[in-house]
């Protein structure tokens, strides 16, 4: 009897909640659709990255529209090619705004995208970069710009948390200093790593032979617990091969740029045992979060290829966050969406969690990815970098 009453109350409660949601769902759909301008690189050097998070976002939009849009208001996308050129980014953004864009999705890189976000800020509309990880960008633009990928600082902290959990005490650091991403990542790692940095090697961006570094590591023998390999694929593939060929089987800790389906092919399954890297989420292997599996399936169907790089997940997740904020804001007003975004806490996204927003960049969970005996990508664990 008591159970029945409880069930009845729960049902009433849920119904009220549902009604509440229904009223919040009314979206100010002036113009018949939400027009999102996508000012991203479709050509040029940055297109390899920018295109992938754009596609991730487009798939999210496709799913949202299949379910009837945001509060019944469908999303319409207009696109412009920034040609990977910072000067062109502003121009393309202005053109999209003139064509009626009500908010802008901008490039995944601060340098390349800042002009676009400033054009949006000047026009009083919101700009959003799904896959940018710089915390300086929002500072440079103002209150209507958000970046949504895990910050470099949080990635570095997550690396340190994982290394500390693993009990590694002595780390050998290898860093490619040509990019701020790597130097900034290493700095946060260093600041949060409990153990000792045995040595730091800087490798050139165009290096193909790491025998000097490898023999130094080999000579140190058991004075090193793990190698912090802070470079990107394909360099890391070459490095790991050379290190393992020299008989060094130390654990290797890397970053999100390790994410490439070609890595196991280049390095081989055996060499990848004890290789870990930290990323925003997991999409590369089997046993995926169902929503991520669906994302990968749709991506393969729509674009004829497995997602080319890690930006697919930030693109997809970013668009989901934005859609949620739009739903809460009930309009495309920049101040209202900004407030709605900033109030998001503990959002469970497919593949990772957003804890909260801090100065318009996210604080979110990281994922450790490793490899199984067959060289398949596997999710090792989630890390809370806080």
């Amino acid at each position, binding site marked *: 009897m008591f159970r029945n009453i409880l069930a009845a109350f729960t049902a009433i409660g849920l119904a009220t909640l549902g009604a509440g949601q229904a009223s919040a769902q009314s979206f100010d759909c002036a113009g018949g659709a939400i027009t999102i301008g996508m000012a991203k690189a479709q050509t040029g050097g940055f297109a390899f990255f920018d295109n992938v998070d754009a596609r991730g976002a487009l798939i999210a939009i496709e799913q949202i529209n299949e379910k009837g849009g945001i509060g019944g208001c469908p999303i319409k996308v207009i696109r412009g090619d920034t040609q990977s050129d910072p000067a062109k980014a502003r121009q393309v953004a202005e053109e999209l705004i003139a064509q009626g864009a009500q908010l802008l999705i901008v490039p995944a890189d601060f340098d390349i995208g800042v002009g676009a976000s400033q054009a949006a800020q000047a026009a009083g509309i919101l700009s959003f970069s799904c896959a940018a990880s710089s915390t300086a960008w929002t*500072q*440079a633009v103002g209150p209507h710009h958000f970046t949504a990928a895990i910050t470099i600082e949080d990635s570095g902290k997550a690396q340190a948390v994982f290394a500390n959990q693993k009990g590694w005490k002595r780390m050998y650091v290898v860093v490619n200093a040509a990019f701020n991403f790597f130097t900034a990542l290493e700095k946060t790692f260093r600041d949060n790593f409990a153990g000792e940095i045995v040595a730091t090697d800087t490798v050139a961006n165009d290096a193909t032979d790491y025998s000097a570094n490898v023999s130094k590591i080999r000579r140190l023998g058991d004075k090193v617990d793990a190698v912090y390999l802070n470079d990107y694929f394909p360099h890391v593939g070459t490095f790991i091969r050379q290190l393992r060929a020299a008989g060094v089987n130390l654990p290797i800790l890397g970053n999100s740029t390790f994410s490439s389906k070609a890595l196991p092919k280049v390095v081989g399954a055996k060499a990848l045992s004890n290789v870990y890297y930290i990323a925003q989420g997991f999409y590369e292997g089997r046993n995926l979060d169902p929503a991520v599996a669906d994302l990968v399936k749709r991506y393969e169907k729509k674009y004829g290829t497995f997602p080319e790089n890690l930006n697919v997940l930030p693109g997809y997740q970013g668009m989901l966050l934005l859609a949620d904020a739009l739903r809460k804001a009930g309009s495309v007003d920049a101040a209202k969406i900004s407030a709605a975004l900033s109030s998001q806490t503990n959002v469970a996204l497919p593949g990772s969690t957003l804890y909260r927003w801090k100065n318009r960049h996210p604080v979110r969970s990281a994922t450790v990815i490793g490899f199984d005996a067959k060289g398949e990508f596997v999710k090792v664990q989630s890390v809370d970098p806080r």
Partner: protein
Amino acid sequence: MRLGLTHDRGPGPLALMGTVTGGTTIVIAISIAVLIWVWAAGGRSESLLVNVGITAIMVIGYQVFVGNTGIVSFGHPAFVAIGAYVGGLVAVPSGIKSAILPDLPHWLMNLSVGFYPSILIGGAAAGLAALVVGPIVMRLSGATAGIMTFGLLVITNEVIRNLDQFTRGTQTFFGVPKASGLLDVYGLLCALTAVSLAYKFSRFGLRTRAARDDPLAAETSGINVVRTRVGAWVLSASITGVAGVLLAHQLTAFSPQSFFITMVIPVMVMAVLGGTASIIGGVAGVVVISAWLEFMRGIEGGSLFGLVEIPSIFGISQLTLGVGLILVLRLRPRGIFGSTEFAWRLSGSRPRDRDPDRGATQGQGE
């Protein structure tokens, strides 16, 4: 008075004035057309045309050195970088500066100058840098000098990457106010065109061009080849530095990788297409290539001025540009304008039709 093409100026100050004002008149006319266009379109293509104007200043700066000395330079992005970083650094408001560059010396931290002073400072800094290295680089000739300028670019880039205290290293430098307006950029373009023309047809420019065509003969005639080249180098660097400051005030955020070899390629192509030895040719190169790229961008985007829907073909602008360049240079190997400039002449006076760049007489009717 009539406006015509000429290879060189006649004798006397009046002829010099005619040559300087000739090319400048054309650039002023283009600038007025640009301003009217943007005003009529309600500010629609403003960013595009500001970018084109800045590129035009870069091309003119490039022409001053390459056109007058005949030495190919790959190093000019270094001067754009110096202009952008120095001009940007002095223009960032103090409040932002303390957040992004906490380790600056006190006096620099509190320094925050306006738009035009920052242009002067940035241009002067680039000129000064050129003056320091000039006497070394300018001893070399031909390909060696070209490679040396590339070396200079690499060094400048590395210095910027490692001078964290002032440049934020490899991180993005930001906080420069957005101040490059259409009127500022095109006003400076006109002024710098006049300066470049005045230099080209001054005695200093004449000496540099003489040393370009026959260094041995020039030296025998008492011309200090290295010194004349350094003059062109420093002026060229200053103009390029001004373009850098303007770029900083347009982009507002940039990093060392923004100023590398890829930046000089389009500038080179524009200068070569228009005629490396001609200033007005450089401007023509900018106009032609910018217009073409913009036209092709519409096609790549999948619509022709919103009228016709066509499938998007990415990369076609670069492809057609390459083909166009080959065709133009097949038909006019020395670029559209060769070495000619526009000049005002009194009606009836005969133009100077000697082409100093060919050393042969060539009929150039009015």
